[in-house]
């Protein structure tokens, strides 16, 4: 067992798992730049929130376009991808009891991503690339912007290859018995989708880059560009979902000793993500010219709904795995497993809030907005950022924050300072995101556009009055300030902990939980038990998921009703 080079590994004093020191270094490097990106994104987020809160209207339009480009790129691409790289290193080494595949690939990954990151941020901050993260042609950025994006993507590809290599050597060297852990399986699904994603990104961005260099005379066709770009843009969201669902399983295990009832169900759901996502770029093109209704309907339903089903399955299996673990500890009642959960452990609270926000908020709105005809009353309104802040911020980003509360003590081997603040941070961030997203959704239902700094339309020839949305934009602003503050608290605590936190080398990390909770969880982790045994009911999860389904049905049909009331159009 194990294939380590002795002087390059250690045994974790908390979990007893092995840690490859090369992998540890790359986890650290990527996580640090992930958090730096989050901080940049959060600073920009303050400015955006204060601008869209029309009573404040902080930035002038040109600055708004610059900072929204900065925010989208640093949040959606840099913070998330650096963290995903860290997760891949962790999964292919520690969880497989194996070593890092290749140091050269590791440096290649990190180096290229770093150069790409620096190039893109320079380009955007100096005002040379205010084209939003989507860089829709024929808007043109300076050439280094596209180059930076491509370098970043190639770096990510090297990280993915290194991960595949890691999975391969672990199998070859038989470092583990049986099948790989569920969390690694989820990461593997994410990595496979990442390959498709990066290829799409290259196909869209290389011609755009050549065109901005002047090597191509004509811009790529804008309809074609959107189709391919969203092969990157949407598929990458599926990477995020795979990754944060894997993180849910991971944190559920670490914080309550959760155990999936049926691994087959969980794994099949991951496979559904891989199989049914490649054409989901369609739901960004639902009101586009040049693509017909049958194409739009087929690709939204076939490609999307089986992936939706996968998310609904995880939305059951994750809480169910928590519920059975809690019942195994002797906690009873319909919702005792929740009320007696370790809510003061930021790893747990971030994970469970992420699950709720992603499911009830992001999931329900996403499927509804992505319905072919309903998209007519939603496309490019603020409802869209309302939706995706509940998937990618309240869902993915929050899950990754929860992960950090364990990664820093276990991998950096340093403790968080100001633990009371860390305990409330997930609530601040998650709560702020929800308030902001609800404000966005309501304003968007009134037609307020996204990517737009001024709903007074100052200087327009035809005046437009959207004053009715004022209270919802205030909600956006206030929720946004709360969320951005939550993100800054996280980044500050994590950066401090990573560099100056109290070292815990050679001993177990200081638990986030009460000794009693801690003891019961450790107990579950170290003994054999069967989550499918008859007396461990999942009634609470059943009730929770039925409430979810009922909300879904109501929201979905309410939107059809709203659509039925608008002008006839086709």
């Amino acid at each position, binding site marked *: 067992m194990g294939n380590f080079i002795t002087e390059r590994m250690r045994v974790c004093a908390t979990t007893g798992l092995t840690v490859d020191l090369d992998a540890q270094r790359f986890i650290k490097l990527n996580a640090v730049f992930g958090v730096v990106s989050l901080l940049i994104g959060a600073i920009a987020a303050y400015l955006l929130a204060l601008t869209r809160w029309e009573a404040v209207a902080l930035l002038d339009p040109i600055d708004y376009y610059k900072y929204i480009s900065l925010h989208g790129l640093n949040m959606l691409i840099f913070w998330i991808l650096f963290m995903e790289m860290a997760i891949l290193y962790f999964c292919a080494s520690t969880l497989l009891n194996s070593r890092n595949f290749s140091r050269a690939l590791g440096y290649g990954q990190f180096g290229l991503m770093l150069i790409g990151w620096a190039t893109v941020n320079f380009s955007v901050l100096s005002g040379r690339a205010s084209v*939003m993260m989507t860089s*829709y042609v*024929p*808007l043109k950025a300076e050439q280094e912007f596209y180059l930076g994006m491509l370098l970043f993507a190639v770096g990510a590809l090297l990280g993915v290859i290194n991960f595949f290599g890691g999975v391969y050597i672990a199998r070859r060297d038989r470092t*583990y018995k*049986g*099948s790989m*852990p*569920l*969390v690694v399986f989820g990461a593997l699904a994410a990595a496979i989708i990442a390959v498709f994603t990066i290829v799409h990104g290259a196909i869209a961005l290389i011609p755009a880059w050549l065109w901005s260099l002047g090597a191509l005379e004509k811009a790529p*066709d*804008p*309809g074609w560009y959107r189709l391919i770009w969203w092969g990157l843009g949407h598929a990458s969201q599926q990477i995020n979902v795979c990754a944060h669902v894997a993180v849910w*399983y991971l944190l559920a*295990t670490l914080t309550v000793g959760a155990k999936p009832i*049926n*691994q*087959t*169900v969980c794994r099949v759901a991951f496979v559904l993500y891989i199989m049914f996502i490649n054409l989901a770029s369609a739901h960004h093109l*639902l*009101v*586009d*010219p040049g*693509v*017909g209704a049958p194409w739009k309907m087929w690709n*939204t339903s076939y490609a999307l*709904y089986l992936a*939706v*089903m996968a998310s609904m*399955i995880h939305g*059951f299996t994750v809480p169910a*795995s928590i519920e059975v673990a809690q019942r195994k500890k002797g906690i009873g009642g319909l919702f005792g497993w929740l009320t007696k959960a370790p809510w003061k452990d930021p790893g747990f609270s971030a994970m469970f809030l992420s699950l709720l926000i992603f499911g009830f908020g992001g999931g329900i709105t996403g499927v509804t907005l992505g319905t*072919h*005809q309903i998209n*007519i*009353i939603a*496309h*490019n*309104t603020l409802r869209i950022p309302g939706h995706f802040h509940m998937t990618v911020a309240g869902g993915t980003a929050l899950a990754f924050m929860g992960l950090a509360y364990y990664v820093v003590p276990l991998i950096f081997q340093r403790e968080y300072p100001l633990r009371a603040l860390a305990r409330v941070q997930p609530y601040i961030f998650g709560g702020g995101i929800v308030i902001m997203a609800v404000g966005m959704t309501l304003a968007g239902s*009134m*037609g307020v*556009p*996204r*990517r*737009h700094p001024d709903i007074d*339309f100052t200087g*327009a*020839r*035809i005046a*437009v009055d959207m004053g009715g949305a004022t209270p919802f934009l205030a909600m956006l602003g206030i929720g946004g300030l709360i969320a951005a503050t939550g993100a800054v608290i996280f980044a500050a605590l994590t950066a401090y902990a990573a560099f100056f936190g109290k070292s815990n080398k050679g001993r177990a990390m200081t638990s986030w939980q009460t000794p009693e909770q801690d003891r019961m969880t450790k107990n579950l*982790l170290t003994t054999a038990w069967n989550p*499918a045994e008859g007396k461990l009911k*999942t*009634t609470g999860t*059943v009730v929770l998921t039925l409430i979810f*389904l009922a909300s879904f049905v109501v929201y979905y049909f309410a939107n059809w009703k709203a659509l039925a009331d608008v*002008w*006839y*159009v*086709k």
Partner: protein
Amino acid sequence: MSIFPVPNGWVRAPHGAERMWVGLALAWCLVLSAAMPYWHFRGRQTSAGEAYDVNPSDFEKRVAQFVAAGQVGDRNGLPIVEVPPGGHGYLIGKNWQWYPALKLKKGVEYKLHVSSGDYQHGFSLQPVNVNFHVLPGYDHVLTVTPTESGEFKIICNEFCGAGHHAMTGLIVVEE
């Protein structure tokens, strides 16, 4: 445990509550899939994506002819053009405005050709809240029947450069 390898032999069908949920999720996804074709045939709103290749400068010429033939008024310097009932109207997004203003009749079906002379734009009719994507090089044909009368504004909800926030237009619908 999700973080430990699982011994071989883990493949088994779902049971009990889990099985029920998988079934419910699948059933709901089938409802979702059926709803769109249903609305396509029975509903009044859809996006057929009807579009024709067009050179942006040719489209501009067509718009100019359309304005010359049907101008009936002017709003702050923006020509108002009456679209013949049941006929074709032309609208171009360019230089951060929707040009020209259109005059329609309630309850009458029109073919509106919408395109861009420069960047991508978002045709967003307010306060109706009907939204379509507009691309240069694509003559996007919308078959539209206004169901209410009054003055409606068009804004742009796809980022299109420095003047995006002030890009507006007008549609007047008479009884």
